[in-house]
């Protein structure tokens, strides 16, 4: 046998004996994540099937996270539609609206375990690849198909192997690596591929860092971004779940369509300029660009590791009251941990706005919407035109360290100056 991780997991979930890239297969789904899309197109599409059941209410993870609490009447109505659907079909894992962002809460609660095949009504469902899962985003109609049958068609992807070695130097983070990779390979460089992260560099990454990388794998066009299992993952899972799982490693002779090598030690802070996550620059090229807003949060970089480095940089500094510094822990659990560690106090003292755990400004929903020509430096994953507000506003993507340093100066700033 010579299978990659993606191939192994897909094979495990189909009734085939072998498979190969480009083949169309049908696979059984272990878990499906849905958020506000449930009250968007999903309930509409599912109604067309006229079913009074879902295949397995125990395999659906439902959460409200994008517009929490609802900033508009229409968002509130959307939530009402979601809730009535979840109640009607007796969803077992109805997480409600106060736990945080889907891609943070689901793994935190032990729902993402090695070897699982997970889909979600959100493109950043790739995040669970950090937990040695095959996980990918799907649209509302696909969700309806899963709700009805528990199965979905897939085209088996080719895999790319990304070898990482070394450790980051101070002030450089997983976000800098993934931005660099997206810039190098381009936002179409891995369309339909599965990325597999190997090497001692990958092992040296924290679980938080792996999640950042798997999260943004989709920005290369990839279908999934998967990490190998190791002791760190095992230790993490032991605190989150008592369910059994099996580690999935690729075969020694697994076939990779392309291979890449990165030495993490050689990386420096990277920023993605508007309006494309692949439009990267080294920090020196963009230092000095003025910003109106700095945002640390989202499913990409709203975790404890991110808040810790931000606090280290921001502690005792002064932020001009002209700059909006918005900090949103990605989940209630992270918020509480940050509170206990004193990070929230540091943020409040310097004048940051701390939001409840929600997507918030990441999609321009609320809590920091950009006006015409405003510039934001953001720890999020997409800097598409108009994503955070007015179509003429501009978004620079960076690590939480770079965002924090930039908030202090009101200009894009190399975080290493403060470390």
């Amino acid at each position: 046998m010579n299978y990659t991780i993606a191939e192994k997991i897909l094979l495990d979930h189909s009734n085939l004996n072998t498979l190969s890239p480009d083949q169309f297969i049908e696979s059984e789904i272990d878990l499906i994540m849905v958020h506000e899309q449930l009250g968007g197109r999903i309930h509409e599409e599912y109604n067309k099937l006229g079913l009074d059941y879902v295949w397995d209410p125990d395999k659906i993870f439902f959460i409200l996270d994008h517009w929490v609490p609802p900033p508009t009447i229409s968002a509130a109505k959307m939530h009402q539609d979601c809730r009535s659907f979840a109640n009607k079909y007796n969803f077992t894992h109805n997480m409600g609206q106060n736990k945080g962002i889907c891609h943070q809460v689901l793994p935190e609660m032990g729902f993402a375990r090695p070897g699982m095949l997970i889909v979600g009504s959100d493109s950043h469902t790739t995040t669970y690849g950090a937990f040695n899962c095959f996980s990918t985003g799907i649209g509302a109609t696909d969700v309806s198909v899963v709700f009805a049958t528990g199965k979905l068609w897939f085209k088996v992807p080719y895999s790319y192997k990304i070898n990482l070695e070394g450790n980051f130097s101070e002030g450089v983070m997983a976000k800098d690596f993934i931005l660099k990779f997206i810039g190098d390979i381009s936002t179409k460089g891995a369309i339909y591929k599965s990325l597999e992260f190997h090497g001692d560099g990958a092992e040296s990454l924290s679980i938080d860092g792996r999640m950042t990388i798997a999260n943004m794998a989709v920005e290369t066009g990839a279908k999934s971004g998967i990490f190998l299992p190791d002791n760190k993952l095992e230790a993490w899972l032991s605190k989150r779940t008592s369910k059994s799982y099996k580690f999935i490693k690729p075969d020694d002779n697994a076939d990779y369509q392309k291979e890449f090598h990165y030495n993490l030690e050689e990386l420096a802070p990277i920023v993605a300029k508007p309006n494309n996550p692949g439009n990267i620059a080294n920090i020196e090229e963009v230092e000095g660009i003025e910003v109106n807003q700095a945002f640390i949060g989202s499913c990409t970089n709203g975790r404890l590791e991110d808040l810790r480095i931000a606090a280290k940089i921001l502690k005792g500094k002064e932020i001009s009251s002209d700059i909006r510094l918005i900090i949103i822990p990605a989940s209630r659990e992270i918020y509480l941990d940050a509170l206990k560690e004193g990070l929230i106090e540091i943020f409040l003292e310097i004048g940051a706005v701390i939001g409840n755990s929600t997507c918030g400004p990441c999609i321009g929903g609320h809590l920091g919407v950009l006006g015409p020509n405003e510039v934001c430096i953001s720890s999020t994953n997409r800097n598409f035109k108009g994503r955070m507000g007015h179509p003429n506003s501009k978004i620079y993507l960076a690590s939480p360290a770079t965002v924090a340093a930039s908030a202090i100066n009101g200009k894009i700033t190399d975080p290493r100056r403060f470390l």
Partner: protein
Amino acid sequence: MDIIQGKVYIMGDDINTDDIVPSHSLTLRDACDMAQCACETIDPEFSTISENLNIIIAGENFGCGSSREEAVNVFKILGIKAIIAKSIARIYFRNLINLGIPGIILDWNKDDFSRSDEILISLEKGEVDNITKNKTITFEKLPPFLINILKKGGILNKIKETL
């Protein structure tokens, strides 16, 4: 379904789902209202232009970004019959097929199509016939599995038969 006829609307590279359906319109409860906002950052007139121009020809990585199926549904509401692009983002491609709209990968150049050109697409033959320019271009045919979903008018119709 095999033959699709229409007029061409040209778009560039990396048209993302926020371009097609701006986030601010996502909570609108009426899909037709949402369709009025389609592609507003690219072309404020888009929702009216597509009455006449109903086949989109785009560059690389069409539909990249979010999984929001609204980004296909607004095109469906506005009467778009097919998308031809140099490459199409994965989730977007699935959403197109699932809603019964052909997504065709074709490496075209700017001499091949101009705005408003009248074209005929044959899915079975894998050909685009540009009637205005009197030119035929071939593309890699969609696999039968996907053609079958398109013929049924989308995957829900196919699923219904098995329930």
